[in-house]
């Protein structure tokens, strides 16, 4: 505890009259700084103490995104809407992709909604450290907050875009089912997966700038190996296991099952759950190990 001092000391006096009574220093240091060994703790307490900063950085990202735009937050709906219209025409009508008896627009939109959140999260997360290099070289706070804020800011766009989903559900007359209880947990799981992948790539990006070029390509390919544009049933039975290896498959399929009142496939969902948690743990750990050289490499 830092006791208050008396106010009428001149700067000359201070040299001679300091005593332990006025300064109540703790016995153990508040903080020790030394070179870290290879095992680096995650330091969740530090993160929790800085949760307000996480909120401020998310708020900053969201505010800045739509400043000086005419349409503002409407962009969060217009983009998926236009994508849906175009894809419905080319894949739904022209290519006649079968969609398990559900109209193509809503089939596609459910996948697109989750996928947009996931892919934007990973992209913005991966570039967040480089984009905030001025903060990293001048101020200390737990660096994990930076990609977390970038991904968290995407949640707002997700919320806005899901308004259109609600509209589509009403339009096509899908009833509310018990599966709706799983919707929020699934969004949470997507967030966990996006965090794991985004955090890992953001740390790699500082050291190897290849990530900045490799990632857009990787994400695009990932889109095609996930059942977003086409249903899982399109893939022949003997190759379906390869699709399940992709954690996004389990989440998207469960999301659709929840909305269309179909029975859940718990095994793939369980796999996605475990994969996401492991990815988050590994991503955070790798991040912490690489963190010590961020300020020097960035």
């Amino acid at each position: 505890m830092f006791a208050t001092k008396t106010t009428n000391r001149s700067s000359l006096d201070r040299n001679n009259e300091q005593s332990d009574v006025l300064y109540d220093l703790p016995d153990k240091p508040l903080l020790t700084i030394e070179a870290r060994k290879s095992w680096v703790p995650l330091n969740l307490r530090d993160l929790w103490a800085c949760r307000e900063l996480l909120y401020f950085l998310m708020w900053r990202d969201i505010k800045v995104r739509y400043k000086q735009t005419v349409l503002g937050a409407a962009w969060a709906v217009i983009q998926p809407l236009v994508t849906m219209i175009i894809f419905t025409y080319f894949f739904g009508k022209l290519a006649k992709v079968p969609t398990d008896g559900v109209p193509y627009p809503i089939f596609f939109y459910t996948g697109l909604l989750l996928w947009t959140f996931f892919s934007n999260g990973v992209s913005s997360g991966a570039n967040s450290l480089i984009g905030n290099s001025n903060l990293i070289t001048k101020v200390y706070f737990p660096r994990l907050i930076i990609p977390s804020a970038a991904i968290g800011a995407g949640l707002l766009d997700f919320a806005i875009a899901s308004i259109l989903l609600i509209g589509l559900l009403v339009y096509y007359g899908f009833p509310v089912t018990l599966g709706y209880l799983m919707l929020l947990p699934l969004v949470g799981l997507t967030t966990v997966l996006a965090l794991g992948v985004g955090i890992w790539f953001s740390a790699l990006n500082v050291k190897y700038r290849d990530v900045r070029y490799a990632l857009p390509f990787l994400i695009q390919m990932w889109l095609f190996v996930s059942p977003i544009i086409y249903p899982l049933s399109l893939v022949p039975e003997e190759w379906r296991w390869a699709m399940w290896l992709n954690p996004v498959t389990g989440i998207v399929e469960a999301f659709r099952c929840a909305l269309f009142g179909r029975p859940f496939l718990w095994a793939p969902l369980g796999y996605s759950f475990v994969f996401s948690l492991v990815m988050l743990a590994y991503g955070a750990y790798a991040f912490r190990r690489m963190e010590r050289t961020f300020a020097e490499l960035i």
Partner: protein
Amino acid sequence: MRPIVKVEGISKRFRIQPREAPSVRYPTLRESLVKMARSPFARNRMNGGSDGTVWALRDVTFEVMPGEVMGIIGPNGAGKSTLLKILSRIIEPTSGRVELYGRVASLLEVGTGFHPDLSGRENVFLNGAILGMKRREIESKFDEIVAFADVGKFIDTAVKHYSSGMYLRLAFAVTAHLDPEVLIVDEVLAVGDGNFQRKCLQKMDDVTRSGRTVLLVTHSLGMVTQHCQRALLLDGGLIVTSGSAQAVVDYYDAMCDQMRSTEADELAASSAP
């Protein structure tokens, strides 16, 4: 009398790689082979160390007592900023240990995190949060900060429209209201017009008089003698001397004079026919 900041044997090594891609871990076998193949007779780099390393700090040890204002001076490249960065946890030391017995706030730059598209008001909150203030703290001090910054009704316009003076004043206003036990300041007072500098010095006076511990890196020797009780002279990563502010400043002056006269002698010798 126990120190509030205890620095023991802090050393910092930077590796300078000839290639573009820095690698902090020891190079892989493949990288070493490629390096050997490319330049089998590569010369040693200037600052010693066969694999291109620079020791920015070497075995720096000192203590700061609570309530003390300690100046850190030295020529460019002495390692002063590196030392501050280590104390601010931005960079990790290669070896050594620092013990901090009080809350630390660092001012390595004015306006960290300011975003040009956000308004002055929004930036005050953002900057305050980045520097470690809680939201409630910023809210309670908000009026003082705005008054100190003196930007008037422009507090709600985007800061990209501010003049550089307004920008600096607002940025400094936030940092001036930090409330740490130990304050680390790095030459932030070097910019701004006369008015701004006076305001900064005034605030520095308030801070030091209220009993905070301050570590101040500066090139202005006048500031050291006027505001600091003790000082540290760094050169080439080593502590050359430490002690009372006046003594260290005198030593530094003498050192500079010595260097200047040696240079003059060398110049005269080389230009003589």
